[in-house]
């Protein structure tokens, strides 16, 4: 179903100023419809029991979720687990949720505050995407960064030398162990 989700195609979405918040002032007042869809997604996620990703509402509020993704195997991120926050606007799914890394993540397209530069969360968003496809896209972004429009220039520069990158990554995790 999802097309164009390859992070390589994130053309115009990039740049350091891309931490744009989604417009929540759209003329859609029916929160009920949104929570209905989110409940449906939650049901499907729980039934599907997808390997490597999971997500659940963070407390009572169905508009705030916490997701986890496993670092993809055969990449420098293998064996790592990342927690992310997903904030759904009242206009979801017509507008994308705001997704951020909670676990510190050293990656060319993730800044130090956890903001993610990914086209499908910005100008390539489609109402057909959901929590599952978002998390799968971010998971594949880990192994296939878009080094053309980095949020973390240092990571983008280091990416070519995967051995050194892995070394730096291990030191990075050691440093952020407690956060």
């Amino acid at each position, binding site marked *: *179903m999802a*097309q*164009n989700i390859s992070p390589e195609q994130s053309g115009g979405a990039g740049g350091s100023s891309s931490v744009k918040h989604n417009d929540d002032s*759209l003329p*859609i007042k*029916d929160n*009920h*419809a949104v929570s*209905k*869809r989110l409940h*449906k*997604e939650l049901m499907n996620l729980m039934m599907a029991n997808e390997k490597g990703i999971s997500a659940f509402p963070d407390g009572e509020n169905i508009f705030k979720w916490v997701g986890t993704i496993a670092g993809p195997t055969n990449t420098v991120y293998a064996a790592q687990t990342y927690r992310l926050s997903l904030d759904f606007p009242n*206009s979801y*799914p*017509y*507008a994308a949720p705001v997704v951020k890394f909670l676990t510190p993540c050293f990656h060319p397209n993730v800044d130090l505050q956890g903001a993610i530069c990914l086209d499908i969360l910005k100008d390539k968003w*489609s*109402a*057909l995407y959901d929590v599952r496809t978002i998390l799968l896209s971010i998971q594949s972004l880990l192994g296939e960064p878009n080094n053309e429009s980095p949020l973390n220039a240092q990571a983008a520069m280091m990416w070519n030398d995967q051995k050194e990158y892995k070394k730096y990554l291990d030191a990075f995790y050691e440093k952020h162990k407690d956060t």
Partner: protein
Amino acid sequence: MKLTIKSWTGVASWRWIANDENCGICRMSFESTCPECALPGDDCPLVWGVCSHCFHMHCIVKWLNLQPLNKQCPMCRQSWKFNIH
């Protein structure tokens, strides 16, 4: 034997013929309505694009109205044109 029918009640059923069970935008069943409507049928119809993808009319119109420039099918990103049957 001669029968006299005094009254009768007609019953009909209908269903949409779509290639999917649920609307991809709202995730509600096509046999049901979009989240804004109460009665299925003509008041909350399905529409098809020439790309063959199908949605509740209210859902796809809302999506298209929120696209500033390119009115594209949310499924295949082809430019959206209503397929008039």
